[in-house]
C-alpha cells in the first residue's frame, strides 16, 4: 500500500470523526460564571485572578464573587457585568486590557510583531536563496589530497556534529 494512500485515508477518517463529534457539543450553565470570574482580578493586592484568590483572610474575593453572581442573576450581559466592576474597582480589576482606545495597542503589538517578523524572515530567506552558488568554473573538478579531506570534514560537520 502506498504511503500517500494511507495518509489520504487517514485524513478522511479524521475528518469524518470530526464531523460526527461536531454534532455532540453541549452548553454549560456555570461556564459563564467561570469565564467572567477568570476575566477579573481580586483587588486585595494578591495579584491573582478572582476565582483563584485563596489569600487567607481576603476581605475582597468573597464579596466580589457574590457581586458577580448577583450581576449574572440580574440577567446582565457579560460586558455590562464587567463594566459594573470597572466602575466600582477601577480599570485594574480587569485581568486583561480591553480592546478599546489605547488599550487596543496591547493586543495589536504582538500580532504586528509577528507580521513584521514573518515578513522580514521570508524576505531574508528569499534573499539568501537568490545569492549565487559558489561553483567551480567549467564544471566539477576532481578533488584529492587536502581538498578531499577538507570536504570530508565539512560533510561530517553537516551531517553529524
Amino acid at each position: 500500500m502506498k504511503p500517500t494512500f494511507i495518509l489520504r485515508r487517514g485524513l478522511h477518517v479524521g475528518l469524518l470523526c470530526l464531523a460526527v463529534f461536531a454534532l455532540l457539543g453541549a452548553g454549560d450553565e456555570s461556564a459563564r460564571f467561570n469565564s467572567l470570574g477568570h476575566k477579573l482580578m481580586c483587588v486585595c493586592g494578591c495579584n491573582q485572578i478572582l476565582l483563584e484568590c485563596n489569600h487567607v483572610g481576603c476581605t475582597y474575593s468573597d464579596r466580589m464573587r457574590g457581586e458577580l453572581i448577583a450581576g449574572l442573576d440580574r440577567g446582565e450581559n457579560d460586558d455590562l457585568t464587567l463594566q459594573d466592576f470597572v466602575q466600582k474597582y477601577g480599570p485594574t480589576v480587569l485581568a486583561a486590557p480591553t480592546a478599546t482606545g489605547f488599550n487596543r495597542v496591547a493586543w495589536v503589538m504582538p500580532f504586528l510583531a509577528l507580521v513584521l517578523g514573518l515578513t522580514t524572515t521570508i524576505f531574508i530567506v528569499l534573499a539568501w536563496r537568490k545569492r549565487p552558488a559558489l561553483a567551480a568554473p567549467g564544471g566539477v573538478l576532481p578533488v584529492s589530497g587536502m581538498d578531499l579531506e577538507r570536504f570530508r570534514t565539512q560533510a561530517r560537520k553537516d551531517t553529524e556534529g
Partner: protein
Amino acid sequence: MSQIGSFALLLALALSAYSFLAGALALARPGPGSERLGETARRAGIATFALVFLAAVVLVTSAFQDDFSIAYIYHHSNRDLPAPYKFATLWSGQEGSLLFWSLLLGAYGLVLRLRHRTDTRLFAHSSVIIAGVQIFFLLLLNFAAHPFALMTGTLPADGAGLNPLLQYPEMVIHPPMLYLGYVGFTIPFAFALGALIMRYPGEKWIRITRRWTMVTWAFLTCGVFLGAHWAYSVLGWGGYWGWDPVENASLMPWLTGTAFLHSVMMQEKRGMLKMWNMWLIFATFWLAILGTFLTRSGIISSVHAFAQSSIGGWFKWFLLITLATFTFFFFKNNSHLRSEHKLESLISRESSFLFNNLLLLLACFTVLWGTWFPLISEYVQGNKVTVGPPFYNKVAIPVALLLLLLTAVGPLLAWRKTSLESLKRNFMWPALGALAVGVLMIALGVRPWNDIAYFYALMAAMLAALVGLTVLSEFIRGGRVISRHTGQNLLASMVHLWHRNTRRYGGYIVHFGVAVVIIGILGTPFNQDKEKEMGYGDKMTIGPYTLVCESYTQDDNANYSNEWAIINVFKGDKQITTMYPERRFYKASQQPQTLPRIRSTVKEDLYLTYEGLNETTGRPIIKAHLNPLVMWIWVGVLIMIGGTVLGLIPNAAPVRVAAPARIEPAPAGAGD
C-alpha cells in the same frame, strides 16, 4: 563578625577593580610585562571570589548565631527558624540575594579563570568583562544594599522571621538554580563581547560558549520549573504559572537563550547568523539583568517582588552602560562577522532555525510587552491596566503552538536541502499518530468548537504527539541502521546512536521533554474545583473522588501554630489515602500561610487547601482542585534536563571503516 563581612566586600571590590583595570591594560598594551600584569589580574579575579565567599559565609554564620545586630539577619531570620531556612536566609532578601548573585558570578569566574589555558587570550578578555560585571554588584553591595548594615538603637531579642512562603524545602534549591541560570548568562556574554573586541577569527569561541550556555540554560530551566512547582505546592491557588512579572522575568532570558542554542548551530555548521548570535547572547544577558531590575526596583507590583528600594537607578545605569558598550564594539568590530553561506532551499534545517528564532523572539517580545504595558498605559493614559493570564493565553499560546509544530518538523529537515519526498516519507507516521490522538481526544469528550481553550488543548495534544513521535521515529530509524551494521539489539543501537552524536540526540530528548511538558499544560482547561465547609463526617465529591472529613485539629510549636483537617479520600468504595491540608500562623513574622496537600497520579492531581475556619460554626472550609495531567509537567522537565546533560557528554570517537562496495542509504533526515 559583621566587620569581617564588610571588610571582605570592600576588599573584593578593590580586587575586582584591579582585575578589570590591570586585565584591560594588559590586553590593550601588549608588550614586555603585559603577560605578568594579565596574570595578576586573573589572580585578583580568583581572590575576589574567595573574599565574596568569605562574606557569604559570615552572613550565613550570623544567621545561625542569631546575630540580630545585623539588620539583614533581623529582618529575615529568627531564633526558632529551622536550620535549612537559616541557610536559605542568604538569598531570602534583597541584600543577601545580591551577595549570593555576586558569589555565583565569582564562582563562574573562578572556573573560567582556572580553565584559561583553553584559549588564553579569549579567556583573558572574558575575565576582564566578568570583573566589570562583578564591580557593579560589589558597588551595590558596598554602597546601596549592604548586607552587613547594623541595627540602630536597642537590639531586639528575636528576629522578624523569614517570609512564610519561603519556608518550604524547595526554596532551599529553587533560588540557587534560578540564580545559577541568570548569573551564568554573564559567561556567554563575556565570551561574545570578548570575541567582538578582539575580532576573534573562526568559530572556536562559539563552541566554547555553546557548552557554557547549555549548562546555564539547564540551570535556568530547572530554576523556572522549580519556581512553578514551588508556586503550585505553596501558594495554594491550584496553579503553577500566573504570568506574574517575576515569572515573566525568568521566562524572557530562557526564551532568547533557547533561540541562541538553536541558531548557534547555524554558525557552527554553515557560518551563518554570526551577528545575530552576538545579539542573541547579549539580549539573553541583558534580559536577565532587566528581570532583576524589574523585581528589585519596585516599579512593577508582584507577589514575588522584593520591596521597593533605591537600587533601581543603579540597575538602570548598568543596563544602559552594557547596552552602550556592546553596541559600540559591535558597530566598530563587526566586519569579520559577515555570513559566508547562502540558503539553498526553503525546505531545510536552516529555514526551520530562522523561523524557530523568529517565534522564540516573538514569544519573548510578547512577554516583555505584556510585562511593561501597565507602565506604558500609565504613562500614556494616566491609569494602569492589568495584563494578566487572559492576555497571555490569547497571544502567547498560538505562538507556542507554532513553535511546537516547528519542533516536530525541524528535526526531519536536513541541512542545505530536504526533498519533499523524504519529508513526506518521514512525516507520514508521526502525522497519522498525531491525527489519531486528535480523534481520540474528541471521542473522549473534548469539544474544540465549544471553547477556544479546548481548541488549544486539542492542538497542543496533537502537536505534542507529533513531536514525541517524530523524536521516536528518528531514534528508531537511526537505531535500525546501526543495528543492521553491528548486530546489536534496537535499544543498544539507539544508545550507540546517541553516543555518536550526543548533542543532536540529547537535543531530541529535550524536544521530547518539551512535548511531555505540553501534555501536562494542556490539562489546564479541564481543571475543576469545589469549596465546602466540612464538619465531622461531611462529604464532598470532586471527579471520581469522595472526600470525607474525619476530623480537624490544631497544634503549636516554637516557630508557628497551625490548624489542619484530616480528610479521608475515597475512590468508589475504597479509601485510597488520607490528606492533611493545613494552615499555619508564623509567630515571628505574624503572617499566615496555607499549605496545600497534593495527591499526584499520572492522570490527575487531587489538590486540597485548608481555607480557614468559619468563624460562626468553627468548621474548616476546604477547597478541592482536580488538576489533570500536572505530573507530566514535572516529568517532562526532568526529561529536558536529562536531555541537556546527555547533550553535554562528549561524542564517542568516530570509528573509521572501509567503504562498503554498495552504499547503504543514510538514515533519513540526516543532520543535526
